[in-house]
């Protein structure tokens, strides 16, 4: 049988990253084809190319044996390709039916659309009231509206980008039943996921991507979660290296049963997180983005007065209720994921950005006045010691390249002699030279007895720097694995949500 879609040598390069590198594989008609990979493996770029959202630099797509030029989502839809995005695009105040008719390319009356939608709902078991406003629907029902909207266009191919990430387990089961029925009726489904058990349960074929390349094309029934996890990460075994010993024994930080309860469907609630951090230990928190990293960082930094249960103990002090300012005064330092506009103000000079994070220290103040000499000389020291490429401390932070600014920010925090340094994505989006420098600085810092937590999607980085790694998955934290002699199969399972 002819494949329904054939990717041939698809290449797409963004400044600094190769998102897709000679991607070629085929998708069998009337099957469920999963694409698996870590963050940044190139899955999303590939399906966006198929959906006409992104233009490839090179390569071609064959659909139904014909060469297809897909310039826009409209052309994709005319070729029978539809997509359900991770984040919905629905009008909250309009009814389900009104939202559905807005997605139609052909002219159709509301009553005709309603009867058509109702027959789809009945056939596949979507539980939708067409007259209720979107604002009254649960997240799962909203997703159903998105799927029905796609089905109304009579697609041959349906792309689903991480469709289960916002659903409850019960809703996931229902969704899978629906997908299987749709495929039985002739649809082809392309399914992006990083959840190993879902891929095993649902898909017929799976393509594993890594760093923009296809690393294997597999038939799912020959695999199990362990083998998939290993294939996703396996190459990393050779990269781990001898890690320095931890020279201290006292605990610096412990989190006891940390849980959060937000109503917002796009936040991940933390679920009984426990860990202990020793003096001089580097602890890595791995996991795919959106599994609670942002929420954990917010709670550790105490932004937005996030509500949570459990306790955060820093050196025998319960810091649950302490403000960011008070926590910094206890010598906890932070480097947030977003550089511009969070851990640095782009419109301000480098020395002003020193004050941004060091305003709790008396040495930078004279009463209510700023001690400019001190912040300037501190900025100068950071620039010198951390190889920040800039003509002077008067340069605006926004003018620095990502790598230089990150060196400046991390240098700023390191030079304040913290006892605990918490970093989120410390080397994300920066050049290789800065990355290596930052990793080296962090390892040296830990040897001086500073404890470090690194929250990162980049497993390579964690394996290179950390003593221990735990995986955050849907708000729960796995057991911690010793990086020396790490069991990659186990790590792969943890990444895919299969905890012991």
């Amino acid at each position, binding site marked *: 049988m002819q494949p329904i879609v054939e990717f041939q040598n698809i290449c797409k390069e963004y400044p600094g990253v190769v998102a897709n590198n000679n991607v070629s594989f085929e998708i069998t008609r009337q099957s469920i084809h999963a694409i698996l990979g870590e963050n940044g493996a190139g899955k999303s770029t590939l399906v966006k190319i198929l959906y006409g959202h992104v233009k490839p630099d090179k390569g071609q797509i064959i659909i139904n044996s014909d060469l297809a030029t897909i310039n826009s989502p409209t052309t994709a839809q005319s070729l029978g390709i539809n997509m359900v995005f991770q984040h919905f695009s629905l009008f909250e105040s309009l009814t389900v039916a009104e939202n559905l008719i807005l997605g139609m390319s052909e002219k159709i009356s509301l009553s005709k659309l309603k009867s058509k939608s109702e027959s789809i709902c009945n056939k596949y078991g979507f539980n939708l009231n067409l007259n209720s406003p979107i604002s009254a629907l649960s997240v799962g029902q909203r997703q159903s509206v998105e799927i029905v909207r796609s089905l109304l266009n009579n697609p041959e191919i349906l792309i689903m980008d991480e469709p289960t990430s916002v659903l409850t387990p019960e809703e996931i089961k229902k969704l899978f039943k629906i997908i299987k029925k749709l495929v039985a009726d002739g649809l082809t489904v392309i399914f992006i996921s990083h959840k190993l058990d879902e891929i095993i349960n649902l898909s017929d074929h799976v393509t594993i991507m890594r760093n923009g390349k296809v690393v294997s094309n597999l038939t799912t029934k020959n695999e199990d979660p362990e083998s998939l996890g290993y294939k996703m990460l396996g190459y990393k075994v050779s990269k781990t290296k001898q890690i320095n010993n931890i020279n201290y024994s006292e605990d610096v930080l412990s989190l006891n049963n940390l849980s959060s309860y937000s109503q917002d469907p796009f936040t991940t609630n933390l679920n009984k997180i426990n860990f202990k951090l020793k003096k001089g230990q580097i602890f890595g928190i791995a996991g795919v983005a959106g599994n609670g990293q942002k929420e954990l960082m917010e709670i550790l930094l105490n932004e937005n007065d996030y509500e949570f249960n459990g306790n955060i103990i820093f050196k025998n002090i319960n810091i649950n209720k302490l403000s*960011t300012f008070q926590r910094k005064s206890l010598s906890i330092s932070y480097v*947030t994921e977003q550089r511009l506009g*969070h851990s640095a103000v782009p419109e*301000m000079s480098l020395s002003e950005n020193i004050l941004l994070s060091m305003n*709790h220290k008396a040495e930078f103040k004279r009463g*209510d*006045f*700023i001690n400019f000499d001190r912040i300037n000389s501190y900025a100068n020291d950071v620039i010198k010691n951390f190889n920040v490429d800039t003509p002077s401390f008067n340069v605006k932070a926004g003018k620095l390249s990502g790598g230089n600014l990150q060196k400046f920010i991390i240098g700023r925090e390191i030079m304040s002699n913290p006892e605990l340094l918490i970093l989120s994505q410390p080397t994300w989006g920066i050049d290789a030279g800065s990355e290596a420098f930052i990793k080296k600085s962090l390892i040296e810092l830990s040897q001086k007895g500073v404890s470090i937590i690194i929250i990162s999607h980049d497993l390579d980085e964690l394996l290179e720097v950390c003593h221990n790694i735990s995986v955050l998955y849907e708000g729960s934290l796995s057991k911690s694995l010793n990086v020396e002699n790490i069991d990659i199969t186990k790590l792969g399972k943890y990444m895919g949500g299969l905890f012991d």
Partner: protein
Amino acid sequence: MVYLISIKLRDDYSNFIFYLSPLVAVVLTLFFGSFIFLILDLSPIESFKIFFISPISNSYGISELFVKATPLAIIALGLSYCFKNNIYNIGAEGQLTMGAIFGGGIGLLFNDSTSIFLLPLMILFGAIGGAFWASIPALLKTKFNTNEILTSLMLTYVALFILDYFVVGPWKDPAGYGLPKSMPFPDAGRLPVLFDGLRIHIGVFFAIIICFITHIVYNKTLFGFKLRVSGLSSKASQYAGFKYKNLIFYTFIISGACAGLAGLFEVSGPIGLLYRDISPNYGFTAIIVAFLGRLNPIGIILSSLLIALTYLGAEDAQLFLKIPSAVGFVFQGLVLFFLLGTDFLNKYKVSIS
């Protein structure tokens, strides 16, 4: 063919143009203003002479310019604290009114006083009145997350009605032929003038001192730094550990106190008593002054002089050109419009494809 207008943030928007744009706005205003005069069958050059030159061609005119610029500058300097912090206090007019009621009330209470402490006490109460009125929207915003633009604006009308009540009710001058005004303040409660026969008063010095203090606060103190950080990025402000709610309070109180001070200066200076129309919209016009001055203390002094000139020009235009004095507000509106326009084009690139 479909034409799409696309608006993109410029990566690298110019600081130079940011400070140049008030000038561009003024030039554009004059340009379009001359069209307005042409439509009215007036010679633009003659009209501009009457509007912008003749009002300040003698010492009386220059004194009047400062009389108008003083409240504008004081209020706008206060507002700049709020605006820098991205808090939009639109109710300076109400805070001005409340300052006049509080400070003026003291003047009426000690009506036969000759003490040299009366005026300082009135000034103090003027500032307290304005600060008190400004603390209400601050409280509502920090406790209930209400929109400060709406609450501060609505409270302006409340303050105006309170003033109305006092001048037609308990504070009405028994010897005032039933007119809605209070009795005049005692001499000890009047703001000293700088030159005999001119109305320019010591409020000018207050404006200069407030400008100087504001300049130091913005550039040398941690408080000014906090305001700038919070105005540029609320997330960075959280990261720095600043308490945003406190900043909201402080900035409202400062701007309210300044507006109250300006109100008291009006009633104890040029006016000399309380009545209904104590302010020709100084509280609202000061918003334009603050932005035209780029929230920079020295810039605000300059822009307050320019906007004060539109008030004077409008009066002369009514007198000599027989056009309504509202033309002054038209010019103020044009300046703001062109300023916002140039700012927008400096920040964003607009292209048609």
